[in-house]
């Protein structure tokens, strides 16, 4: 049984289609391994019993025309799942059971997927280490006491530890790509408007985007195909022709022009990351791609811009958690007192910090200086990319400025924590697609990732480039199952 969990998503689909494995066998295998891996704390809620029933149901009447027939999958606990508790990593939604299904998880169900549980994440997806979750910190299976990245830390941990064959996350400033990079897995943030936001607990509406997290690029292409759809229930969803990402996946990148932005060479970046970047450049050249030096002059302003725009939207998006309608409520003397106690006790420190920042930057007298200015800078950052894409097809950068850090290392230093998103944030501000794939290790043997950034709605090109790099870079995760006794 144990080797079933070693298979990747596409292999499992293949085995189901060839009837070499049943959905029940696969589902049980991942559930068993999940049950042995509670130390990692990847899950917030499980759906094991229901999942096994659904697997049996699938096996009794298998529909093999689906894209992920009978495949079990645990998902980030930011996606609302019908009749299955959804907490967003917060105490304020501790007992919240949605009566509805998010569009993305519905797409997974519609394509034959079976949801086996809800994965841990930073509270309301605010964090880069999964240390802000009300449901506890998550271990990176790479090494004990190492953060799995965030905010999709439960997802990256569960994926790398093979508790789920693939998973989905959400990415507002790097929340898919950074944890993928920290765990030696692949994560893709699609173009804003590709995957519906309907039913995803909102953090920052103009930046949030759901995306696949997988073991390799092929799996990533397949899962993106499943997730991405036009949805009239999300006014920011874009009705474009979605590609056959898996079918059209190709490692032929001959003639592709790939830009290298000089602004991404930051001071104090570890040598290994520098070397990894060079290695990526060499692979592209060897495969017939053209390397072109480019400039994204406003990169430096991305992080401060992000930390105005995202908290501003969050401060408003989180106003609905007031104890009145659903979720946690504290008793109060009157309405205001109830609000204050509910929100003081229901939200964690990082969420409160961002609500305060967001409220401040939107306040009258400060709006122009912060929010409005940030929106203007955001436009400039987008213009930088538009300008670059006149010359190149895609851009190659490191995913993060460092490898995974120790649990607790940055918890009390928010700015140093925020700096972790320096390479991923500009992409969200510009609404572009980007993929992180593993490329090497640092001196501690911790994974490092490369990021390929694409033009809007051109997910295929970045998948192809990543596929080509993946084939040649020879990365392998060394996970010794230290947490299973």
């Amino acid at each position, binding site marked *: 049984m144990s080797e079933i969990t070693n298979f990747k998503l596409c292999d499992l689909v293949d085995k189901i289609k060839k009837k070499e494995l049943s959905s029940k066998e696969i589902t049980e295998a991942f559930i068993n391994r999940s049950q042995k891996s509670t130390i990692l704390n990847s899950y917030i809620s499980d759906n094991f019993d229901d999942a096994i029933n659904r697997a049996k149901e699938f096996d009794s009447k298998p529909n093999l025309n689906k894209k992920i027939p009978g495949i079990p999958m645990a998902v980030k606990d930011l996606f*609302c799942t019908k009749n299955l508790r959804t907490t967003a990593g917060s105490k304020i939604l501790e007992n919240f059971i949605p009566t509805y299904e998010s569009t993305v998880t519905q797409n997974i169900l519609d394509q034959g997927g079976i949801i086996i549980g809800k994965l841990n994440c930073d509270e309301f997806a605010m964090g880069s280490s999964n240390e802000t979750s009300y449901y506890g910190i998550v271990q990176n299976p790479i090494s004990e006491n190492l953060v799995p990245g965030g905010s999709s830390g439960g997802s990256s941990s569960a994926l790398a530890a093979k508790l789920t064959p693939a998973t989905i996350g959400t990415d507002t400033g790097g929340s898919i790509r950074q944890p993928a990079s920290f765990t030696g897995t692949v994560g893709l943030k699609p173009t804003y408007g590709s995957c519906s936001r309907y039913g995803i607990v909102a953090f920052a509406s103009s930046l949030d985007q759901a995306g696949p997290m997988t073991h390799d690029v092929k799996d990533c292409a397949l899962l993106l195909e499943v997730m991405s759809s036009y949805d009239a229930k999300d006014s920011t969803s874009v009705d474009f022709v979605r590609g056959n990402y898996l079918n059209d996946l190709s490692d032929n990148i001959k003639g592709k022009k790939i830009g290298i932005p000089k602004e991404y060479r930051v001071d104090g970046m570890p040598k290994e990351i520098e070397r990894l970047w060079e290695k990526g450049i060499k692979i592209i050249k060897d495969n017939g791609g053209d390397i072109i030096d480019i400039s994204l002059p406003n990169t430096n302003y991305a992080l401060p811009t992000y930390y105005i725009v995202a908290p501003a939207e969050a401060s408003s998006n989180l106003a609905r958690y007031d104890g009145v309608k*659903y979720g946690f409520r504290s008793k109060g003397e009157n309405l205001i007192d109830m609000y204050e106690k509910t929100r003081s006790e229901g939200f964690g420190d990082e969420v409160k910090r961002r609500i305060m920042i967001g409220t401040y930057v939107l306040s009258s007298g400060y709006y122009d200086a912060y929010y409005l200015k940030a929106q203007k800078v955001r436009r400039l950052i987008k213009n930088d990319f538009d300008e670059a894409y006149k010359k190149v097809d895609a851009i190659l950068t490191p995913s993060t400025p460092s490898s995974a850090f120790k649990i607790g290392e940055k918890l009390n230093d928010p700015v140093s924590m925020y700096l972790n998103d320096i390479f991923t944030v500009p992409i969200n501000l510009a609404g572009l697609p980007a993929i992180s794939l593993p490329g090497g290790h640092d001196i501690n043997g911790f994974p490092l990732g490369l990021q390929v950034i694409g033009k809007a709605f051109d997910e295929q090109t970045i998948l192809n480039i990543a596929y080509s790099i993946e084939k040649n870079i020879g990365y392998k995760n060394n996970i010794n199952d230290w947490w299973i006794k």
Partner: protein
Amino acid sequence: MIKNNKEYLIKRDNREYEVIIGLEVHAQVLSESKLFSSSPTKFGSEPNTQVSLVDAAFPGMLPVINEFCIKQAIKTGIGLNAKINNRSIFDRKNYFYADLPQGYQISQYKNPIVGEGSVTLDMPEGEKKIGIERLHLEQDAGKSIHDIDPRNTLVDLNRSGVALMEIVSKPDLRSLDEVNAYIKKLRSIMRYLGTCDGNMQEGSLRADVNVSVRKKGVSELGTRCEIKNVNSIKFMQMAIDYEANRQVDILEEGGSVDQETRLFDTKKNETRSMRTKEDAHDYRYFPDPDLLPLELNDEFIEDIKKDIPELPDEKKKRFIEKFKLSPYEATILVSDIETSKYFEDVSIKSDIKLATNWITGELFALLNDKSIEITESPISSENLAKLINLIKDGTISGKIAKTVFEMMVDGDQDPEKIVEEKGLKQQSDPKELEKIIDKVISDNPKNVEAYKSGKDKLFGFFVGQVMKQSNGKANPQLVNQILKKKLN
């Protein structure tokens, strides 16, 4: 208290103060579903039965613009002779309240869907134009109910998310009569357009009233106070009168008016401070990132323009020019779309002049008496037209017609049948009339003599006698003619 002066001035000794009024009218968009969700909007449903996940702001729920509401706002804008903006933006107005599930209201702040326009008022002293500053779309909040449960406030979200148009006037109103005329005109235009039912009892039309005063002759505006959420014209007038006098009293005592938001207490007939400028909410407006800017191309707007019906001002003009009605008559008949429809129905089938008189006279008196709307009129336009035709062709006299009219009320009866069955047909046969007249003359020799000797007034006596003898059926014109001939 409320004086209908032509010029509304507040006097203290020999000092006169002018009252400056601006209105922010909240008009509920006539629409089957809400502004950003598909929930129904029916009034008076059981609490919390018209609430979707979006209206109750469940996690991950997103607003989707209801195109019909957008069209309704554009129509209204066109009816207000206003500029329709090709690009408008929905913003979030952030504040906490138990009946505001999202913790913000989606509204339009800096970029409304409709810009400047105007409304023409028909005042006794002539027309007056009132400027419109803007019209924007926004969501209504739910309703907090404090008087059902002794310890808890209950919340009904049926209204949460219903589309409202906020129509902001310029500070152009100067009297209580103008406020009355303005609200009625707005209501009339929207009812013509079918964009708001204007039902003030059900809260479909409410207003925030801005009031300031200044010494007569001074050109700059005084500090204003805003009176929130007044839901009838009468209350608006009472609130303005109270508030204007309050402000004048402050100025008279050498004080200055503080800019603040006030509430009108309908029981005590006074306004009370709700919050001052210092503790005004900071709503932290910003563009709603869940909604894209609303882009309207000219073609879309032009298509809506094609659907705009004849509005009260144009209709009035047509009634005056084509139907030769007086401006007063035309104003009355176009003021309400249903009245104008009724009038046009009747006049097409009968006679314009008679239709005007009968509708503004007998019918209005009847409706007034019964306190009902013209749509509930016990006499259909078809039967009123028949009655008028009976007068017009001489079948019955105007006087008999009034009797028939009274009989028609009970079950909208056909006047032709009534006249037939009750034998009310006018006596227009000159030979028959002559017989009656001859009898009256021979029965009253003294009066005949008196008349002939110069007592002209006695003519009426003879007419009366003839009418009496004919049970009121004699054709009065013929009676006059024959009588004159016989007596002279």
